[in-house]
Structure formats: structure tokens, C-alpha cells
């Protein structure tokens, strides 16, 4: 195996003398201990997998819904691209949409990749380049995404760094394709979206593998610890440090300091979004406060004595928001300095003094070792005075202020979730706060209503202020992220998944831009866990899934096991742990079907697409990172459903169930081309409602390879959910029947009638593949 190595040292003592600023580049290292043969596409470039991409993009057409009809990306524009018009550079509307999606996917990938790079560089500095990468017990096939994409087995942090070099090169290529006068066809833009999605998945795997190996997080542990979660779990008798973002390093400095000094009886460390997961993966005394859209409600409550932000999904107005409640902010990432003065090199005591006195609203501290001590000491110092203050307005004050409402509806127009804020304000005029509470439940905390209000009402604070009882009831127990899935677990479930007897793997991942509150995520997860699908979660969705109690007061994580098995709910961890979901699907091909992974992308993606009934759901997807994550799954042929806001990603990948030719595969045994049913029917789809998403989830788990038993189980779920949510027996069940024994017994009469009506004919079950080279006869037949 060829790979490049790069070694850098500020000062190195060698037999030849002492070198300052030493940099060594080694051209090739051979991994000759690995006997798995190299596949056809190690470290693919932007066009290496183009033909696989085009197969998918022909089967699933891009359906664009532009935000607007102009392009304003260069000075030859603005260009009007409406109708058949082209821009001055020659680009048409479809091309431009593909280009914007590619720009978004690049942005998303860059966030994960830069995060991963920061981690690797930091950890190499702390622990040395030869530090071993360990995914955990029972993970002989560790780093499956890396193996598949690069042909490498990353065994040390140094290897990880080499893989990131590759990722960085690929990102530069795919980003450059969006420049004026580069790529021109929508399909090639989309192929590059897939490419950068794959790179994103790889960089996430490296990030999580590195942190799991070095920072004391659970390693592929189905019994990952249960931890406390929710605003009500935060003990405000203690000083409270709130961390927000995705990068564990600054937060780790805090929890380590608090532990080292034995201060947990005086300090609470709570997190939002992925930093919360990664903190609790290392330290179970830390707490998960809530998903990313909880930022303002919590900051404005004044409960946090210090806010520490790292990177990604942090509110960009966090400093001015925290200032309103006199909370000091510490920014820690060079990607999100937030306008704060750089105090990285100043003495700790002077920084603490300035933050405590309020002389500066916050400080940028890039030296992570200092963050822990500063955040903790500042929080302890400012806490006593802060607890005497009240930060939210009283109900009486709200009622009084509300009297001046202009009834202009601007707040309603501004609300992305169509919440009737005006009506709630008018009700508050009479002292009725119920409607404000209702809005709060469906609110994503964007405060667009406030910026639109001519009276400058702090509307989001009003909602939160009158909902403080529900704050207190937010006392949940959630399972922190386990990391990868073990090979032994895959060995147990591989066959039932591929045969369809475990009807599917449903992954709830991503952000918290929910159309109607986070409970939907829980309800969807529970619906399918009950049906014995395997449910995996990560990121903010994993938090929301855990924020609902059943009649016994238990969360979904308390009542269901964290094993990768039917009916279980498995929290993988933070966003970067999404890579383990892909990893699990990839390992099914390696373990159950004994396929080689090494540099063998197209074959494995084809395997997964045709055999592994997995569906990703990101009900609150909002970020560019979510596009990149989804794109990594699309290239593996795994369908993704998003919530209604996801329609604003402006492009769906839709199959045409009515076009038989789109559902033809090769039978790998004979090379014969055979019709299969439309399964999975779409590759990317925004569902309008939970009802639609649930029905679609069941349907998108159907795969050409299902055995008769598997197919009949999958169809039973589909029919049941369809009847429940749509109110009638679905009209397309007959299409999915290949032989009579595919028919679920209890639905026999109805399906037989449908088959007769549609002149159904029996057809064989192929050994399905979309790749000619996978035909055993070598594609000769």
C-alpha cells in the first residue's frame, strides 16, 4: 500500500545534531502486513466513482426547487436563469442548483474535516504520532469507512493524519468545481456532492476514532453509561458552566479541571449539541442540557454562569445574547472567535479578573489547557451575585408590555414554523399565557419573531419565562454515545438484516430544526423500535429522542437496550459518530457476505443499496453538515428522509415507481437483467408530516434481495402504517410481490385481489447488482 507520511517537529535531536523546524516528507510506506487484496479504487479522486454515481443519479432523478431564479456569484451577474436562460458563464438553472448544493456539501464537509484536523493535530501534540487507534473490543474490522475509501487501516494518529491529507485534497477539488467556469452539468455537480459526502464520512470516522482512542470515551460499548439530561437536571445551587458546539477539547479541559480539583460538588458542567455528548462520553458527571435550538432559552434564563463555545452550530450572536444576562463568554475555536479579544497568551489571573469584573464580555482563548481553569474559576466567582438576579420578565410584566402590541403580524410572518405569536401575545394581554407556552413547545429558538417585532419585544424570552415549569420537568436520563458497532453484533444481525427478517435499520440523526417540537423524533423512533427495527441515533436527534418519558417515567434509552439489535435504541454519539452508522452497514458486507472492503467502494455500495434495509432520518436537518452527512449515505445507496424544512435543501432524489426500466438489476448469477420492485423508492425525500415519514420509512426499507419471509414482514409493516396514517390499504403492494410466498398471510385476500386486478406475474428473486462487473460470469452473458 502506498501512502504518504509527513513528520514535523519544532526541535528534533538526531545523531546529526539538533534540527529546528524540522519537516520530513516520506513518499511511500507499505502496509505489507495486511493480506486483504487491494480493490480497484483506493483513495478515489473526484471522478473515480463517477460511473457508480451516475447509476444512482439515473435511477433517482434530481428534482430541484430553486430558492430564487438568479445567480449572483460573479461580477458577470446577476444572471437571470429563469426559463431556458443561461448565465453569462453558460450555466443553466439545473446546473446552478447542483452547484449550490455542492457548495453546501463542501461547507458541511469542511466543518467536519477541519474539526477532525484540529483533533488529530492536537492529539498528536499531546500523545505523539504513534499513539494507537483503538475502536474497542470486538472491532477487528476497525475503521471500515477508511478501509473502504482509502484502502488503509489507520492504526496510529499518524495514519489518521495521512488520511486527512487525502480528505483535504479531495475537498479542495470538489470546492474548486463550484468556481465560475468549472463544472457545468447538474449530474457532475451531484456526483461531486456524493464524493464530498464520502470524504465527509471518512473525516468523521477519523475524528471519532481518534477521540475514542485517546480521551477515555466508551469504545464500541453497548452498555455506554446513562447520564442526566435536560434543563431540570442542572443544579443551580452550583456554579453552572454551559458548553456549546462540537469539539470536545476545550470542554474536556473543563471537566478535567473540575474533576482534578474535586469541584463537582460546587460546579455543574452542562453541554448543548454534540459537545454535550462527547463530554458525557468521557465524564458522566457532566450533563446533556439539550439540543442546539435550546441555546437561547437557556442562556437567557441566566442559569449559565459562563458560556464556553467551541465550533459549529453555535449562535453567532452568542456574545450579545450572553451580555444581556451578564454572562461571560469564552470562545475557543479559531473558526468561531465571535469578535472577542484574544487573551490566549495572557496570565490566567488577569483574564479571570477581567471576566469576573465584566470589563470584557468574554475572551478568545485558543490555549485549551487554560480554558478549564478560567471557566471554572470565573463561574464560581460570578455565581453568588447572579443567583440573586432574576433574568426572565414576570408574567405581570409580560402582560403589561403586551398591551402595546401593534397587531402587525410581523412576528408570525417571520416565524419559520408558522407559529401564531401575535395571537399568543394578544392572549397574554388578558393574562392568559397558555398560547405562549404552546408556541414555546413548537419553537426552534431562532428569535426571528423578535427581530421582526417593531416593539422589540423579547418574545422568545416571554415564551420561555411562562414555561419555566416545563424547564423543571426536563429531567431525563439518556444513554451517551457508544461509538462503533462491534463485529460480533454484526455477526448476529447481518443475516436477518440482509434477508429482511429484521425489517430495517432506522437512523435518527442530525439537527433540531423541528417543524413541531422534538417529541416527534422520539415518537418515530419508538414506533419503529416497537416493530423491532434497529434504531440508531446521534447528535441533537439523539437528545430529543431521549427527552420524552413513558408512563413509568423512563426514557427510550432506559427502557431499551443499547445493543445493535432488533428493538434496541443505539446512541452512537456526536455528529462525527454518524460514521459508525455507515460503518455498520459496510461491515455487514464484510462480515456476513465476506466481501473485501479495501479500496472497494462501488461493490460495497452496490451491496448495501440492494441488500441492507437502512434508512436515515434527519427530522430537524438544517445545516450544511447535514447535507454532507446525507451525501455520504447517498453514495452508499442508503435513502435519507428529512422533515419538511428539509425541502429547503432545494433538491430531492426521486425514483419513478411507474417506470419499470428504472428498477431493473442484473442477476449476479446469470447476468440476466431482471425487474425488481421500486425499492428503495427514493434516495432523498422531505416528508411533510410524521405520518408521511413513518409510512415512507417502512417502505424505504424494502430491498431487492429480501427473502420471501423478509419481504412479507416488511410489507406487513408498510401496510399497517399506511392504513393507520393514510386511512386506506396501499394500492401498490402487488408490485412488491415476487412470488406467492412474499404475501403476508394475514393480508392475503386483499393482496391477491390487487394482484389479479393488476395482472401480476410471478418473477424470480435475483441476486441483485447494478454493476456489470459483479456478474459471476464477468458480465459476458
Amino acid at each position, binding site marked *: 500500500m502506498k501512502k504518504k507520511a509527513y513528520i514535523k517537529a519544532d526541535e528534533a535531536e538526531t545523531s546529526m545534531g539538533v534540527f529546528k523546524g524540522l519537516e520530513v516528507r516520506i513518499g511511500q510506506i507499505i502496509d505489507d502486513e495486511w493480506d486483504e487484496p487491494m480493490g480497484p479504487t483506493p483513495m478515489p479522486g473526484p471522478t473515480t466513482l463517477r460511473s457508480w454515481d451516475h447509476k444512482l443519479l439515473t435511477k433517482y432523478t434530481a428534482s430541484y426547487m430553486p430558492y430564487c*431564479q438568479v445567480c449572483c456569484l460573479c461580477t458577470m451577474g446577476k444572471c*437571470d436563469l429563469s426559463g431556458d436562460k443561461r448565465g453569462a458563464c453558460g450555466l443553466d*438553472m439545473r446546473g446552478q442548483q447542483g452547484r449550490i448544493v455542492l457548495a453546501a456539501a463542501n461547507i458541511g464537509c469542511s466543518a467536519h474535516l477541519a474539526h477532525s484536523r484540529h483533533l488529530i493535530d492536537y492529539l498528536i501534540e499531546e500523545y505523539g504520532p504513534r499513539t494507537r487507534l483503538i475502536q474497542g473490543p470486538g472491532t477487528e474490522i476497525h475503521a471500515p469507512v477508511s478501509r473502504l475509501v482509502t484502502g488503509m487501516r489507520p492504526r496510529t494518529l499518524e495514519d489518521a493524519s495521512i488520511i486527512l491529507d487525502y480528505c483535504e485534497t479531495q475537498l479542495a477539488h470538489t470546492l474548486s468545481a463550484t468556481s465560475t467556469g468549472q463544472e457545468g452539468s447538474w449530474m457532475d455537480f451531484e456526483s461531486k456532492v456524493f464524493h464530498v459526502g464520502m470524504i465527509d464520512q471518512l473525516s468523521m470516522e477519523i475524528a471519532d476514532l481518534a477521540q475514542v482512542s485517546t480521551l477515555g470515551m466508551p469504545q464500541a460499548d453497548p452498555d455506554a453509561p446513562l447520564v442526566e439530561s435536560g434543563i431540570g437536571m442542572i443544579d443551580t445551587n452550583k456554579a453552572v458552566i454551559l458548553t456549546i458546539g462540537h469539539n470536545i477539547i476545550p470542554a474536556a479541559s473543563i471537566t478535567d479541571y473540575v474533576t482534578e480539583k474535586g469541584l463537582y460538588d460546587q460546579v455543574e458542567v452542562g453541554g448543548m449539541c454534540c459537545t454535550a455528548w462527547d463530554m458525557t462520553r468521557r465524564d458522566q458527571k457532566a450533563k446533556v442540557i439539550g439540543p442546539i435550538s435550546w441555546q437561547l432559552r437557556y442562556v437567557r434564563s441566566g442559569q449559565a454562569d459562563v458560556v464556553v463555545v467551541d465550533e459549529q452550530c453555535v449562535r453567532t450572536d452568542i456574545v450579545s445574547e450572553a451580555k444581556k444576562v451578564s454572562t461571560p463568554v469564552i470562545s475557543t475555536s479559531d473558526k468561531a472567535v465571535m469578535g472577542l479579544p484574544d487573551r490566549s497568551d495572557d496570565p490566567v489571573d488577569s483574564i479571570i479578573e477581567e471576566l469576573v469584573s465584566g470589563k470584557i464580555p468574554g475572551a478568545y482563548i485558543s490555549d485549551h489547557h487554560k480554558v478549564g481553569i478560567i471557566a471554572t474559576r470565573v463561574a464560581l466567582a460570578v455565581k453568588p451575585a447572579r443567583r440573586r438576579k432574576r433574568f426572565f420578565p414576570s408574567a405581570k410584566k409580560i402582560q403589561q408590555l403586551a398591551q402595546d402590541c401593534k397587531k402587525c403580524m410581523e412576528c408570525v410572518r417571520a416565524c419559520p414554523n408558522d407559529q401564531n405569536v401575535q395571537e399568543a401575545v394578544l392572549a397574554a394581554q388578558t393574562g392568559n399565557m397558555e398560547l405562549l407556552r404552546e408556541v414555546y413547545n413548537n419553537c426552534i429558538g431562532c428569535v426571528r419573531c423578535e427581530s421582526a417585532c417593531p416593539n422589540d419585544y423579547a418574545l422568545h424570552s416571554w415564551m420561555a419565562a411562562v414555561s419555566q415549569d416545563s424547564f423543571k420537568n426536563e429531567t431525563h436520563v439518556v444513554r451517551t454515545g457508544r461509538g462503533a458497532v462491534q463485529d460480533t453484533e454484526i455477526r448476529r444481525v447481518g443475516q436477518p438484516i440482509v434477508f429482511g427478517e429484521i425489517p430495517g435499520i432506522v437512523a435518527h440523526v442530525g439537527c433540531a430544526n423541528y417543524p413541531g417540537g422534538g417529541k416527534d423524533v422520539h415518537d418515530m423512533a419508538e414506533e419503529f423500535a416497537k416493530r423491532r427495527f434497529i434504531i440508531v441515533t446521534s447528535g441533537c436527534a439523539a437528545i430529543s429522542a431521549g427527552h420524552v418519558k413513558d408512563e413509568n417515567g423512563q426514557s427510550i434509552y432506559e427502557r431499551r437496550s443499547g445493543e445493535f439489535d432488533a428493538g434496541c435504541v443505539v446512541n452512537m454519539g456526536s455528529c462525527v459518530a454518524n460514521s459508525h452508522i455507515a460503518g455498520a452497514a459496510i461491515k455487514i458486507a464484510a462480515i456476513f457476505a465476506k466481501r473485501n472492503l479495501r479500496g472497494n467502494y462501488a461493490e460495497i455500495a452496490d451491496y448495501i443499496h440492494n441488500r441492507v434495509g437502512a434508512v436515515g432520518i434527519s427530522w430537524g436537518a438544517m445545516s450544511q453538515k447535514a447535507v454532507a452527512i446525507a451525501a455520504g449515505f447517498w453514495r452508499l445507496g442508503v435513502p435519507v428522509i428529512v422533515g419538511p424544512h428539509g425541502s429547503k435543501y*432545494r433538491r430531492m432524489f426521486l425514483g419513478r415507481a411507474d417506470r419499470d426500466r428504472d428498477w431493473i438489476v442484473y442477476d449476479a448469477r446469470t447476468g440476466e437483467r431482471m425487474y425488481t420492485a421500486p425499492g428503495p423508492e427514493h434516495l432523498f425525500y422531505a416528508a411533510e408530516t410524521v405520518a408521511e415519514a413513518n*409510512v415512507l420509512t417502512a417502505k424505504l426499507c424494502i430491498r431487492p434481495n429480501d427473502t420471501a419471509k423478509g419481504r412479507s414482514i416488511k410489507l406487513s409493516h408498510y401496510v399497517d402504517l399506511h392504513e393507520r*396514517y393514510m386511512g*386506506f390499504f396501499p394500492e401498490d403492494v402487488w408490485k412488491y410481490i415476487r412470488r406467492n410466498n412474499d404475501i403476508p398471510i394475514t393480508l392475503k385476500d386483499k393482496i391477491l385481489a390487487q394482484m389479479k386486478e393488476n395482472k401480476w406475474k410471478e418473477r424470480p428473486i435475483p441476486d441483485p447488482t447494478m454493476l456489470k462487473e459483479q456478474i459471476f460470469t464477468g458480465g459476458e452473458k
Partner: protein
Amino acid sequence: MMRATPWQTGEICGPDAAKALTKAAQLKRDWRKTKKPLMIVGSQAPSIKHGRGDMVDYSIELSKAAKIPIVATGGAVKAFIERGFEDAKSMGAMELVGYLQDPTWKGPHGKGPHDMILTHSMQYYMEWTLLSGVMNFARHIVPVSLSRFYQPHATWSMPNLKEKNYRDLLKEILEFLGGSK
């Protein structure tokens, strides 16, 4: 409130933008030309009140009067079935955007290809994404929004009407489309 500006104020669409629909008679030309209209009813229909009923009842009435087949999205079909209206079909809003771009597609009832769509009762943003797909890539179709708030990606859309004016205009449209063909 009568200005034809996008309801969600950031939703500015480009050179093409819907004409403000304030009188049913404005639809005369397009309605006369249309041979195969399709009504797309969103998931909020059962919760949007209209007269003594809701937008499901209105849709049924309009469908019968003006002979416009209905496709309900996001599970709204259940409400039609529960009211004994068996002619509504069910599809996803995003599926519809894709299929409508094909000028040969026969539609959910097999009665197409459709040359006009009338949409309403969807989340505001989902209606505009749907309409954007149609406006830009299904140019054989005249998209008409029957929602209360201005949808710039349609050909015709109401300019953010007051509740009462909206109800009145819906009635007028029912009478006009129901009586004019």
C-alpha cells in the same frame, strides 16, 4: 396587508413572481385554457377552518363543482376518506414536484397530463418549495395557489389576505370555477 410581498419576508424568488389574485375572474383566461387541472391539498387542510367546516370540506365542494380531481399530501387523504369522499388520491408533496416535471405524466388519477395545479393548506415553506419546482421545471403547468398568504412561485397567488377577505375570495372562486365551465 394587501401588498403582494412574500408572506415569509425572505422568500423572494426572482424575475418571475406570482400575480396577485384578488378576484376570481382574474383566473378566467387561464381557467378557460386549462383542460386538466389538479388540486393539491396539504396536510393542514383538516385544521384550517372554513365556513362551518374546514379546508377538506371546501376542497370537496370545489372538486365536485369544478370537476377538479384532488391529490392530498402528507396524509391529508385520511380526512377525505373519513368524510366519504373516495376520489382523493394520496401522494407526497415532494413526489408530486418530481412527477409534475414530466409533461407526459398522467397524474395520480391517470387523467392527466395536468396543465394547471391549485395548491393550498400546506406549510408555507413546503408550498413554496413545491411551487418553485413547478414554476421552474414544469413550465407546461399553470400553478395557482389558493392559500391565504402570498406564494411568489405561483402564477396566481393571494396577496396576504385578511381572514374574512380570504374566506370571501374562496367562495367567489368556488362559484366562478364551479360555474364557468
